[in-house]
């Protein structure tokens, strides 16, 4: 039985439709990320699960029970916000204990559970302090402790890392995942940050303009995007308009500009059902710049380096092959190719994906 189910949910604000007919099954104990740009409806979905918004149509089930008419304070959910939302007039311990007061927990147990929660988030000694005496990262840990101490059926995280500094954000990402695995709570995480989504999720739900674009494991969504939007939103991709000429048992034959004829694995083109227009998806980091000849089984195309965006351990090139500009991200050891260099673009056909045109 799934922990959370959305059945044909529609949410309209006046004439604006924020969420179109979306359905979703979230498995017990899973870490599911709703990923998309701002305004894609991911937060609206989260707020509907939380009970902060009522769906216009469709139904929401938590633990198999319909909760459309259950108010938020009876849903037993943990909610963590981007801005921490700690109670500024209560100490850290009082903040964490807040939810337990409404759950008939004896006071001795409250103290023990608060302490356990604070230890879980690695801040055992701040119970007597006030939230504003803590750093942003610490406040977010407290907010997390407050949400999980009540042993919620579902933990809802609304961009919890977005307000933190870049370095801290990466630490917290690991920390958050560790805690989630430890307590095994079903988690719905909302973010617009693809690296957070890829690093933390069991399953990613990519959303755009109120619709679910693709649902899958991080590797699946990344390697086999099911739409142009997904291909572009997760990492950088080159998309070339071509056509499918033949479809075999385990290979799909494509013809695309620049790279010519390619035979790509059928599992990288699951949506192509037969010959016809198709799009070739080439991830920027799969396109290797080289001045050596291509090994066997690798397609090589001459190109010209136009722009170099040096990033330290990696470099992003904009290259021109024929009249098409392509993007390539390569790990480098030493110096990148200079602007104006003539190079070969190397591409292994099995690294490509294809979409119906």
């Amino acid at each position, binding site marked *: 039985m799934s922990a959370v189910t959305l059945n044909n949910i529609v949410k309209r604000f006046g004439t604006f439709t924020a969420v179109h007919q979306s359905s979703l099954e979230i498995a017990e104990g899973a870490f599911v990320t709703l990923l998309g740009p701002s305004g894609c409806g991911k937060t609206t979905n989260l707020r509907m699960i*939380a009970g*902060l918004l009522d769906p216009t149509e469709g139904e929401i089930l938590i633990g198999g029970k319909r909760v459309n008419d259950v*108010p*938020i*304070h*009876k*849903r*037993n*959910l*943990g*909610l963590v*916000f981007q*801005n921490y*939302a*700690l*109670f*500024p*007039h209560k100490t850290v311990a009082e903040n964490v204990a*807040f*939810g337990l007061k*409404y*759950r008939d927990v004896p006071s001795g147990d409250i103290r023990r559970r608060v302490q356990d929660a604070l230890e879980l988030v690695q801040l055992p000694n701040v119970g007597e302090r*006030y*939230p*504003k005496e803590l750093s942003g990262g610490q406040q977010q840990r407290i*907010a997390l402790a*407050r*949400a999980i101490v*009540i042993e919620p059926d579902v933990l*809802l995280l609304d961009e919890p890392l977005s307000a933190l500094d870049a370095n801290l954000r990466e630490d917290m990402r690991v920390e958050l995942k560790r805690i989630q695995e430890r307590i095994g709570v079903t988690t719905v995480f909302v973010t617009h940050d693809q690296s957070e989504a890829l690093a933390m999720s069991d399953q990613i739900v990519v959303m755009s303009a109120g619709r679910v674009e693709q649902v899958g494991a991080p590797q699946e969504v990344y390697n086999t995007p099911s739409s142009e939007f997904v291909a572009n939103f997760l990492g950088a991709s080159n998309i070339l308009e071509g056509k499918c000429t033949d479809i075999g048992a385990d290979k799909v034959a494509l013809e695309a500009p620049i790279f010519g004829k390619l035979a790509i694995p059928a599992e990288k083109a699951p949506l192509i059902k037969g010959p016809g227009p198709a799009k070739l998806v080439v991830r920027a980091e799969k396109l290797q710049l080289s001045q050596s000849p291509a090994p066997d089984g690798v397609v090589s195309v001459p190109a010209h380096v136009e722009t170099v965006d040096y990033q330290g351990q990696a470099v992003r090139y904009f290259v021109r092959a024929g009249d098409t500009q392509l993007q390539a991200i390569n790990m480098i050891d030493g110096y990148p190719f200079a602007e104006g260099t003539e190079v070969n673009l190397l591409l292994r056909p099995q690294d490509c994906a294809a979409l119906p045109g």
Partner: protein
Amino acid sequence: MREGASIGWNLVRAWTVLVYIFMFLPVAVVVLLSFNASQFGSFPMTGFSFRWFVELAQNDAILRAFRTSVVLGLLTAAISTTLGVLASLALVRYRVPGANMISTLLIAPILVPEVVLAVALLLFLNFLQINKSFTLLLLGHVIFTLPFVILVVQARLVSIKRDIEEAAMSLGASPRQTFFQVTLPLMLPAVLAGALFAFTISFDDITGTLFWKPGGVETVPTQIFAMLRNSISPEINALGTVMILMTVGLPLLGLALARKLSTKSGG
């Protein structure tokens, strides 16, 4: 050039000081004369004495007026604050049709000259054939203290993030528990400030009170006014001093309290 500018600034400074003297000298004189031993409420001072405060404390009419003012002020503060908090909550937290219009209407009594408001209310009640009463007086005071409460409380409520209340509800607090556990404590400084405003404004008011008070009921300001018509008794100076203490001292105290509360709760 520089010389000229500095002379100019000195003139501005001197002028500022003069304005302050103009404003506060009469108040200082009243306070000073309230300690005058002489039986005339004017200079020269013949000695220092608490005599007039003692007489004040023994004057039944004044004591009655004082009691009326305090009761009126407290009731006004209680009603205005309750209504103001509820109105602010509705206007800030819920989508009320015509919220802007309602907000303007509620604030309007500040903008309308008090005399106009006083006469209007009186005529209106005349039209409804309701007699003047203490309740009516209280009602009038509520009408023109309400805007102050609403302005102060609304400003504070806007700065309390909705997230915090949503967090409380997600943890199991009902909307009512959320209000008493989270929202009210966070807006308490503003609520207290609003209540103090309401009390002092009511305690201080004379224009509206003169129009609305039923016969035989006097508040401190109307009592002073009545006493002044006979003679300038030094008792009035003493009463003035007490009034100043209450209307200036209380808000200052409240402000200090509010500041302390809000630093504790992190603003």
